[in-house]
């Protein structure tokens, strides 16, 4: 089945004000740069964004925050973005902070048809407030619900025309689970190849989870914390 669309403009068609969008990536690693730029261009507003982080002030989701396109963020860690902190503390931005493992599992569950699950993460903390607690094996757990999205936007290293995806290094992170949890999943890839060229043994996410795929371009792949050692 051919999932290819011509470009990012076509890929992002149908994204409307007020929608819920999942965006893959950890920090700036593995984020869908092309699609974020397109959302900025479209000026879509009142978005609920589900993403582990919120970018930095001038890159990643920070670009959407700058233009006040995001109404609500669902994330686990947002410490790299001053504008985010300002909007949150001033009440302009709704924020739901959730433990990273719960965020990952809630996306996975959303894509896997599991409506909710129990996890020990967050028991006894403020994130457990209002949530059902149940003991398993003598240990308290809290009930967390699945997450889905109108659109999930993911970034992969390689993809084929059937929508199969392969990720590189730690750029995989949240991309696979989010691909599963989107009603419509858009995949942008560094290298798009004809079906049959990728080894089926090496596929990380099967094309069934991807509705639109396109060849991305001009990846900046900005490094957040360049940390190196000298050759000894």
């Amino acid at each position, binding site marked *: 089945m051919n999932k290819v669309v011509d470009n990012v403009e076509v890929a992002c068609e149908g994204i409307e004000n007020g929608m819920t969008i999942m965006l893959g990536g*950890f*920090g*700036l*690693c*593995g984020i869908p740069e092309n699609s974020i730029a397109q959302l900025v261009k479209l000026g879509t507003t009142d978005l609920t964004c589900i993403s*582990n982080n919120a970018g930095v002030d001038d890159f990643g989701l920070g670009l959407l925050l700058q233009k006040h396109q995001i109404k609500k963020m669902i*994330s*686990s*860690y*947002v*410490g*790299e973005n001053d504008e985010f*902190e300002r909007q*949150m*503390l001033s009440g302009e931005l709704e*924020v739901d*902070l959730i*433990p*990273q*493992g*719960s*965020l*990952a*599992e809630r*996306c*996975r569950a959303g894509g896997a048809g599991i409506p909710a699950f129990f*996890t*020990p*993460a*967050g*028991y*006894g*903390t*403020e*994130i457990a407030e209002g949530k059902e607690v149940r003991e398993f094996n003598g240990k308290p757990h809290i009930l967390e619900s699945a997450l889905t999205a109108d659109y999930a936007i993911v970034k992969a*290293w390689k993809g084929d025309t059937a929508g199969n995806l392969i*990720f*590189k*290094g*730690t*750029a*995989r*992170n*949240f*991309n*696979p*689970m989010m691909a599963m949890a989107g009603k419509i999943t858009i995949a942008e890839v560094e290298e798009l190849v004809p079906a049959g060229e990728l080894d089926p043994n090496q596929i*990380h996410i099967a094309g069934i989870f991807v509705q639109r795929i396109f060849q991305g371009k001009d990846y900046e*792949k*900005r*490094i*957040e*914390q*360049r*940390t*190196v*050692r*000298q*050759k000894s």
Partner: protein
Amino acid sequence: MALDKNQIAQRIAQELRDGWYVNLGIGIPTLVANFIPKGIEVEFQSENGILGMGPFPIDGEEDADLINAGKQTITAMDGAAYFDSATSFAMIRGQHVQLTVLGAMEVSENGDIANWKIPGKMVKGMGGAMDLVASADNIIVAMMHANKRGESKLLKNCSLPLTGVGCVKKVVTNLAVLEIVEGGGFKLIERAPGVSVEEIQNATEGTLIIEGDIPEMVL
């Protein structure tokens, strides 16, 4: 003399055992990787999706697609593996990781930990810390004994929003190694070289349990 950050990491590294998978948090915990005792093999997990994390890359060889949970560029050791975030936390929640080392703003004498939020001031989020502390069997906190205002971080009760309850087993600070005992209390295990029991007592707000002579750390 109180320990510096590297020495805290060096002392924690003595807790490593052959064959362990270890998750190191941001800050002092990251430094533990520099002091792995000779003759043992451990593998470092970073919750953004790698097992077998290696040292920082040589200048010019950094790869934007290869970072740790602190968003720093890293390398991968021979035998490393990459995986998605759900699998990564399956390793953590499923107790496949033998040791978690993380920093804290406060620890209470019953093992509660606070390290993610200062209401009205700092809102960065918990990242993976809540999953890590709720799941790991063996949690060591690496931190300074007092905060920047000189107030004890080892308390009867945490005042900041909690990250987890009753989960910390051991604390290594610039002054001491302490174990959290059942029923509550910081049991003093070792002193930093040249630091007296009285100094540690004065710097500890929570209940300090002192039994017999307390040895100095050997670094």
